[in-house]
């Protein structure tokens, strides 16, 4: 038990990411409302962003913005700055998720105009008629 607890506390970022991911995944698969599905998708993507960003963390490190001349003179002490690459990657992933959300919202608008509802059951009912 204690070992398990230690494991959870030591890697708490991964546990958080897994919990968030499961919430998002459940919402995408299990919910019947299209908006809730979309929000689930965003939670899922946030979970992945958390995974990547937490991978770049170093204890006691600063943000990776450096003075050009100081770097040219002394070089970089890698331990003193966090890894910027995951942040940059996630910036791109955020852009992707924003665009997907935008497209999804626009499509939802069309669905709403066509069926007057965003509940999947009601839409299917209307289609069945």
């Amino acid at each position, binding site marked *: 038990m204690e070992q398990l607890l230690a494991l959870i506390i030591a890697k708490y970022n991964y546990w958080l990411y897994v919990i968030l991911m499961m919430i998002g995944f459940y919402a995408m698969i299990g919910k019947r409302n299209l908006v809730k599905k979309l929000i689930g998708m965003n939670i899922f993507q946030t979970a992945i962003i958390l995974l990547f960003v937490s991978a770049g963390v170093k204890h006691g490190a600063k943000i990776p913005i450096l003075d050009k001349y100081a770097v040219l003179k002394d070089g970089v002490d890698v331990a003193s700055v966090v890894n910027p690459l995951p942040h940059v990657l996630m910036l791109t992933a955020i852009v992707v998720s924003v665009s997907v959300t*935008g497209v999804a*919202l626009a499509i939802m*608008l069309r669905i709403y*105009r066509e069926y007057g509802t965003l509940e999947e059951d009601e839409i299917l009912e209307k289609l069945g008629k």
Partner: protein
Amino acid sequence: MKLLQERTAKQTLGESLIIQTAVRLMVPFIQLFGLYVIVHGHYSPGGGFQGGVILGASFVALALAFDQQLCMRLMSERVNGVLGNLGALIFTGTALLCALFGGLFLDYSALDALIPLGPIEWRSFGIFIVEVGVGLAVMSIMVSLFWDLGSNGGMDEGL
């Protein structure tokens, strides 16, 4: 600015004088800050995407505080579409230009053959050009997304 004053004077949409006045005062500064972020993107935190979002947000603020019609009179849908395309074209065009002048794609130092500034200067300047393109495209996309979604696709009064 004159247009805004007219609208406010007429009080056609007098939702809240405080919000409208605040937005009127803030929008120029928001846009200036957006431009600053774009222009400084290549050697400090910032860049085309962030600056473009800030620029887009200024128009969104206008549409929220007043109404979408006014926002679209300041920047019409057509202009917005052209700007977005232009931004994307600047990005890809720069890339292609680098290749046409004998370098690799997006290798800005090749543009030295076009205007001799020195390859190192060009490496910095090329990113700036690309950032401007990205900024334009992002701003246009943000604004048109808001317009479309905010007015239920009808491009009318909006929220």
